[in-house]
């Protein structure tokens, strides 16, 4: 039998006057990895909490396969959630925190501890099993929370910024583990993140939210190559949104060419700007340019190119791009 899809229908959450989630429609196919992205306060956590059943729904439905689960209690939904604030049980050691759901199922002590130890190992927390949460660092707590959510073998895993407090090493490693786990279990993961990297790496479906609404949903590559709005273009990163005669359009930051303003104008369209800041980023250098009238342009140069003409803040600069790199946008942000 085909596994069930998760569908949000006109899902809405209001806190008093604040509309946190505004009638969103979303279909997440069975067995896919969905990443929710969006600026702080756009309603990601609220959406997740409504799917998990921890927040009352102000309107709309959550449908899982054939069943409307909008009104089911959290334990009956087959969801497992990792909380943004971790919500570790302060009186239980790490291993007992992780083993909690197995204990609730009546799994005997030895078995559940063995299983929990495995999970802790997965998140590189094996040596800390007997510690209380208060005795852990922020990142360590986050990993325990992650392990606790994953042990339940649910039908939907909901992760609220599961890797934000981890160092890049660990983050990459956990990312791989998460993806592998999701593939193995073949279940739905919904993962809130701020990192495009993460979304790019993990998502089958990336959803970009803004002000409680879904701005664009699609595969990461789709989003990157065809941002529908200026907001998406900006958010997904690596794009400059510029105003042309035919409306707004986007150009990727790594497709911009910079030249000394005094030099001859290069081929193709372009504009004049002033270097505002230069950020050294390891393998490349990122320049923020002032395009006049408050418009800001980001250009990414690789190191040799930059070293060839090392711009300084304040330098005037000629920006140009080729027509092939221009991408028209639906509406300006």
């Amino acid at each position, binding site marked *: 039998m085909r596994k069930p899809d998760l569908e949000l229908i006109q899902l*809405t959450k*209001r806190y008093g006057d604040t509309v946190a989630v505004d009638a969103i429609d979303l279909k997440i196919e069975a067995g896919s990895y969905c990443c929710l992205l969006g600026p702080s306060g756009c309603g990601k956590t609220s959406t997740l909490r409504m799917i998990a059943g*921890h927040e*009352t729904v102000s*309107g709309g*439905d959550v449908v899982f396969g054939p*069943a409307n689960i*909008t009104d089911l209690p*959290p334990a*009956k939904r087959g969801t497992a959630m990792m909380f943004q604030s971790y919500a570790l049980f302060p009186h239980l050691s790490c291993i007992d925190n992780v083993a909690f759901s197995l204990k609730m199922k009546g799994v005997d002590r030895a078995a559940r501890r063995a299983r929990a130890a495995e999970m802790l190992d997965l998140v590189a927390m094996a040596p800390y099993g007997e510690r209380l949460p208060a005795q852990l660092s922020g990142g360590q707590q986050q990993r325990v929370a992650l392990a606790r959510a994953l042990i339940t073998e649910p039908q939907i895993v909901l992760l609220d910024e599961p890797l934000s407090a981890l160092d890049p090493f660990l983050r990459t490693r956990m990312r791989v583990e998460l993806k592998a786990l999701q593939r193995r279990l073949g279940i739905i993961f919904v993962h809130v993140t701020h990192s495009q990297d993460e979304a790019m790496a993990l998502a089958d479906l990336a959803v970009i939210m803004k002000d409680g609404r879904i701005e664009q949903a699609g595969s990461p590559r789709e989003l990157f190559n065809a941002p529908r709005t200026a907001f998406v273009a900006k958010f997904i990163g690596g794009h400059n949104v510029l105003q042309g005669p035919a409306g707004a359009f986007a150009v990727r930051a790594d497709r911009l060419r910079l030249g000394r303003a005094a030099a001859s104008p290069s081929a193709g369209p372009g504009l004049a700007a002033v270097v505002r800041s230069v950020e050294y980023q390891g393998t490349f250098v990122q320049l923020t340019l002032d395009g006049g009238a408050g418009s800001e342009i980001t250009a990414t140069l690789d190191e040799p190119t930059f070293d060839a003409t090392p711009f300084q803040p304040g330098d005037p600069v000629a920006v140009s791009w080729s027509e092939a790199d221009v991408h028209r946008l639906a509406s300006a942000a």
Partner: protein
Amino acid sequence: MSHTARPTDAGGAPAAGASPAAPLAAAAPRAARPRGRHGWAPPAWLQAMPMGLVFALFFVLPLALVVVVSFWDYNDYEILPSFTFRSYTETFEGCYDQLPGLCTIFKTYVTTAELCFAVWAITLVIGFTISYFLAFHVRSLTMQIVLALLCTIPFWTSNVIRMISWIPLLGRNGLVNQALTHAGVVDAPLEWLLYSRFSVILAFVHLFTFFMVIPIFNSMVRIDRRLIEAAYDAGASGWQTLWNVVVPLCKPGIVIGSIFVVTIVMGDFVTVGVMGGQQIASAGKIIETRLNALQFPPAAANAVILLAATLLIITALTKVVDIRKEL
């Protein structure tokens, strides 16, 4: 704040049939949606039921009897079941005529309120300080329990016996007076140590400080230490931290402790009687005198008046901090 304490979402059940995509046969009809997401847990009213029943049977019902009796007439030796305001009018007799002088009942309530206020203020300060020490300076739970026990044990020696021991402690020839005269602080024994307002307040403080400590301590231990650190970090002095962070965060505890102390002191007559040499009037004492004279209706009426007066104070207190909302 916990989510569970939030009111069930007001918009929880919109006219959802309107949802264009309520498509699935299996989807439960909206009308059947239980209010909130607690349908699965024992309903709250059921949890409150045992306590509610105890109160209904053994407090509200008897109280109703008392209220009824307060409107009955009485003569020298029996209650007459006929409706009258006599107990009330007699209680307030002269209150209007004697203005601006105070009639007995007003005088009594003024005395009671003064006692109440003094006891409240002192127990609050002491109770808060003790709680603060226990919550923030005693590090292990075991030690906290041991110290709490240390404070509880004196109360396991019957109050009856403890009351008697105030005379050898505070009396004319008591320990304190002897110590003071020996030390040359005073040349004649202090009379006001016993059978005075001082001794009444002292005994109240002795008895009821712990009633403050328990709720305040319980609010205090729940304060995240990081908040205190954050306050210090923001340059707050110890006092400022206390006043701006600790006090607001344990307000519910303070209010609850205050309710304990205020209500008990308002209704007390035993301590006021014994420690005041039976010479200090209090709202409770009026009732006691009436009861001992077996005059039930006026006693009942006075109880009703006391109840009303105290509820007024409590309502005002809970206006300042709604302890039920702060859960």
